């Protein structure tokens, strides 16, 4: 019984994590992709390519060295010409999902 509950709990966690990832993908698509999708026609990607010059991927979801907190910090404070985003644009729940989506390859 305990095993079943553990499996069920694990399944719920997995489902929840998958849901969060799915929501995060939508948030990324809506708010991040116009600047951070692959291709230099996207200013964020172009800027990171100019910064890292091939040493590191210019596509932020390839990164494996960022924390969810870093993603949240960037979204709420902005950097360079990237502005910060308000909670009416990206809610805290959406930001959590987004952060988990960005770091999903860790």
């Amino acid at each position, binding site marked *: 019984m305990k095993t079943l509950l553990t499996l069920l709990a694990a399944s719920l966690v997995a489902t929840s994590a998958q849901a969060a990832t799915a929501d995060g993908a939508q948030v990324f698509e*809506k708010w991040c992709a*116009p*600047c951070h999708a692959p*291709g*230099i*026609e*996207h*200013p*964020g990607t*172009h*800027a990171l390519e*100019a*910064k890292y010059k091939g040493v590191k991927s210019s596509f932020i979801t390839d990164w494996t060295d960022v924390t969810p907190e870093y993603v949240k910090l960037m979204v*709420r404070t*902005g950097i*360079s*010409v*990237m*502005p*910060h*985003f*308000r*909670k*009416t*644009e990206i809610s805290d729940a959406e930001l959590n999902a987004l952060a988990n989506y960005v770091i999903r390859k860790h």
Partner: protein
Amino acid sequence: MRTPPGVSPSDFAAALAAFTQIVGAEWVFTSDEDVALYRDAYSPLAGQPEERLASAAVAPETTQQVQAIVRVANQYRIPIYPISTGKNLGYGGSAPAYSGSVVVDLKRMNRILEVDEANMSVLVEPGVSYFDLYNHLRKTGSKLWIDCPDPGWGSVVGNAVDRGGGYTMANYRNHFDSHCGMEIVLPNGELLRTGMGAIPGARTWQQYKSGCGPWVDGIFSQSNLGIVTKMGFWLMPEPEAYLRCTVSVPRYKDLIPLVDILNHVENARIVNGFPDLASPLLGYPPTGQVQLFIEGTSAYATTAQQKALLAQADQGYSPELEAYALANKIPYWELWVTFYGPMEVVEAQWKATQRHFSQIPGATYKIVDQLKLPVDPAKISDYHEPEFGVPSLRAFSIGARTPYNPTPSKGHMWFSPIIPRTGEAIFEANRVFSAAAKDLGMPLFQTFSMPACFWERSFIFILATPVTTDAATNRKYLAGFKKLIEIGGQHGWGEYRTAPVFQESVMDVYSFNNHALHRLHETLKDAIDPNGILSAGRYNIWPRHLRKKAQ
């Protein structure tokens, strides 16, 4: 937590409690962390005592909630400042003109209320972005195009109310002009519909603009006298084809007939798309293509000899430079013209266009793109997306780090005076502003600057002033920007739109007959917003009780 000036802490607390009752605690923002999200991301005064900052923010979801918020603001005399999507970057962003105002954030009002395919119109709320509307139209199989500015995350309503411009056909590019019908919450909380919308059960609200009686829509632009909660727009039916061509001319003075003939062919609707001016010789790309040059996907070749001549030229001219251009067949000026319509029609329009420009000796012509529409979405990034009614954020490569700009800026402030649509005015604006910018130490000119052609009867001589991370540099640019406004005014030029930090300077230029226009603005303000709760200070229109204090 900051309290609005002149409001007691107890009144402010009562107002915030009332706002919470109206929209729910989740949508009233009072913590420093949350209120900081309403700062202007491109403020040249970031972190300085004069930075314009909100005291709180409230985010309604419905028109009724906006009305209730406005009534509470009147009750407690709370200054409120509406924003739509808050992405008016370079023109003030989401920060209020009057520090301590409560921002009314309309982003949650993001419904596309009606798309009338037959009438080719739409009715939207202020939180709807160009991306939202575009995606909705494509998802529903609509054959309508939007007209959008470069930043696709902007509000359809907000951009129109702030009189923004776009890139498709002339009659859609002026976003305020292409609106049809508004719904406005007045500063006393009453609801108004303009045009035919004033008729209960109106059936032509998005079909006929002015209704009957004085047409008042204009006084609700730039957001001083009401909060726009719905706005109708005419949309462009998807054209069958797109043709983009260039007319190149060889000599410096050819710019004058080039613009004169452009004005004719555009206002005769022979050319019906966005025109754009460039200079292959001076290395100045067309406005609509500037990001392609920054990205390095398109570039004018410049030889070492050409660069040396350019460095010695005066505002893009020297006899030696012109001789070099003629000898090497490098056009001094290049006009990009676009056409929308059936293929056989745009081809005929292009033929007629060439006939008109043949008055200029040595003019040459080239077809750049000839496309059946719609463009394959996978290939749209080969083009300047807004010319196809497709929103993007590509223009943010301006100021961002690129191989051509290793030191990214923190943002930019758009200096946007309106100048006459003549070649002579382009020369004069370059002469006046480049000399001033040099004196003021502002990095605005390389060789020569071309205006943007959003509207058919005027140019915007638009220049991006960088915002840096250094406060002293920003102060220098800010003072320089104000001086440029003043110099522009001395030449009969004025800004069409500007950030709050420059609004007083800009409105000072509009001073005919002892500031008669400004005095009328104040008269309207006192009549329509007697408690002075709405958008205090925006475009230097202050409510009576703040006028002396503000000045």
